[in-house]
């Protein structure tokens, strides 16, 4: 891109040679850098590709938040870790409700007057629970 801009300041006798060089360089950069897609007629967009082949555009994340595409890791794909979309709960007295002395780890929250606990061990395979209490829609993420 910079080379193309510079052409404006070159003598016309060199312009064709410079243009040819920049076109070749552009072609090479496309093939050698799979995470970056450059389109000469548009603003450059930045993508990362996960292991399923799905492409995620992160242009805004890079340009506005200073994130580095190299720090996006794992790339398991969107279906690898299914969230819990319809969580079911035990209340005191229900079969399977833990005794008061058990000390496993939980994250607890109280919303609209109701308290709910989520075992960390239950979250660690799913990472996200999409839950709702009254008019409050919330996500528990681990």
């Amino acid at each position: 891109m910079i080379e193309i801009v510079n052409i404006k300041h070159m003598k016309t006798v060199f312009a064709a040679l410079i243009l040819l060089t920049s076109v070749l360089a552009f072609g090479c950069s496309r093939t050698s850098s799979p995470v970056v897609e450059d389109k000469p007629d548009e603003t450059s967009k930045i993508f990362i590709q996960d292991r399923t082949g799905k492409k995620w555009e992160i242009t805004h994340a890079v340009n506005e938040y200073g994130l580095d595409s190299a720090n996006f890791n794992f790339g398991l794909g969107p279906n690898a870790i299914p969230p819990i979309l319809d969580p079911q709960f035990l209340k005191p007295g229900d079969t399977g409700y833990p005794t008061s002395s058990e000390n496993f780890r939980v994250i607890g929250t109280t919303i609209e007057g109701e308290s709910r606990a989520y075992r960390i061990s239950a979250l660690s395979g799913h990472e996200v629970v999409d839950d709702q209490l009254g008019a409050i829609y919330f996500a528990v993420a681990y």
Partner: protein
Amino acid sequence: MDLAVVNSRKLLSNVLTLAPSGWTYGRTFVLYDYETESMWLPMENEKNQTEMVCISGQYADQKLPEIESVMTTWNLWKRDNPDTKIMK
């Protein structure tokens, strides 16, 4: 990752279904929403609250505020919240 956080998943009148994107950024999970496939990253704001910030997609720059929660153990949570429910 040892960050557990509760956030709103409603933006204006739109309810979002948040899910793991399969990506991490550094040591933090990256979420996305089923509805628009926008990407969401937990970030700490100036009040030490962990917001979900939309870093890419239709909801870019929107934030989902944190809802107060406690990382603790069951016996302590149950002592302080005797009527609590627990996810199966």
